């Protein structure tokens, strides 16, 4: 039996959360590593001195998108051909842009935060959500690409939840996305990940920000 992938990161969402979501969606159990021992274990394996780090299939993988692409292909969540893959890449890159805005905000100065969150919600409502609403309306299928569940759906679902944490009513003008959210949220693996006790992490709080700043020295 294959060993569980080992995830090395801080005890928080950050750039690892998208990876946790994808593994959960694929029904893959993971081993999480953080805390004092982490730096000793990871020393020498961090290609650019950065985490996330995922140990899987005998490899020490870094770089969020490299890891996500590898997992998507491994667990058949990457479409059936090159053109579907290209669409999945487009959609996941777009949602990642949105999610990275949210991830960066706790680390900006307190006076900027409110402004940033408002800007992010605006971008979600005027740029990202309309684009995905249109995709779903266009083909009328349950999932974004190729009438099959893929990495693109996992990440859009995650992005929706993150923006809803900033503005609970953000989907009010997006009926397709509302239905999509309900549908995807009901899938067994997704449902499981949403339960308390899963590997899902809470939003960044002051303590998390402090730890990250201390370790990464910024």
């Amino acid at each position, binding site marked *: 039996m294959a060993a569980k992938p080992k995830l090395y990161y801080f005890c928080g969402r950050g750039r690892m959360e998208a990876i946790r979501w994808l593994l959960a969606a694929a029904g893959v159990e993971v081993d999480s590593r953080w805390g004092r021992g982490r730096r000793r274990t990871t020393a020498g394996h961090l290609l650019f001195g950065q985490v996330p780090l995922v140990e899987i299939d005998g*490899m020490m993988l870094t*770089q969020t998108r490299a890891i996500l*692409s590898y997992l998507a292909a491994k667990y058949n969540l990457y479409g059936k051909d090159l053109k579907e*893959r290209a669409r999945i*890449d*487009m959609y996941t890159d777009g949602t990642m842009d949105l999610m990275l805005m949210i991830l960066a905000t706790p680390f900006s100065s307190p006076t900027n935060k409110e402004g940033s969150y408002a800007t992010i919600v605006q971008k979600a409502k005027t740029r990202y959500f309309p*684009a995905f609403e249109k995709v779903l309306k266009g083909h009328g299928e349950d999932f974004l690409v190729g009438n099959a569940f893929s990495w693109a759906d996992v990440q859009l679902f995650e992005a929706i939840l993150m923006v809803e944490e900033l503005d609970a009513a953000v989907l009010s003008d997006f009926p397709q996305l509302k239905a999509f959210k309900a549908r995807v949220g009901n899938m067994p693996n997704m449902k499981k990940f949403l339960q308390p006790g899963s590997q899902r992490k809470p939003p960044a709080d002051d303590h998390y920000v402090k730890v990250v700043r201390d370790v990464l020295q910024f």
Partner: protein
Amino acid sequence: MAEKPVLHYFNARGKMESIRWLLAAAGVEFEEEFIASPEDMAKLKTDERFMFQQVPMVEMDGMKLVQSRAILNYIATKYNLYGKDAKERVLIDMYTEGMTDLNEMFILLPMASKEEKPDKIATIKDKTKNRYLPAFEKVLKSHGQDYLVGNRLSRADILMVELLYYIEELDASLLDGFPLLQALKTRISNLPNVKKFLQPGSQRKPPLDEKVLEEARKTFKL
């Protein structure tokens, strides 16, 4: 005969330049439509070809591809520059993601204010010398092969060499102490398609100078 890809972007390097390099290295001829006026800019918001109202956008094989990574992934796969299997692919991705992080710093540098610039330059030099170049020199040293992954040309080599040219433009001395990377740069630059792209008259774009940036600021009212 298949139509040529059409690249939509500003007449500048930015995030499109890596795509130009990769197409050129693959020997693929392409056309360009430049965003040159405020009207062109405004069209991004309403023209449905631009999924997230942004460029780069590349029309190819019946698709309107946006997001530079998605575009590069597609081109690399189509033209066999993405390794032979999943394990080579993930190595290529790890390397190119790191390169992309550094490339972004170069792309953003012209936009920095006069006050910010010295700091930004110092950061780029530090990361180049202490994080990125050592990592890639180590990769080449570890296997002693002519290319970064799988003993075969891939997108990782193309992006590496593009980046080495930018590093050299900033400060040629940064390449001191990285003999294997210098050799890679020479080797890749001598490949016929790359050599052609490096000649004057190709679609390769020059660095943004102050004058061009001032013009752009006025045109787009930035």
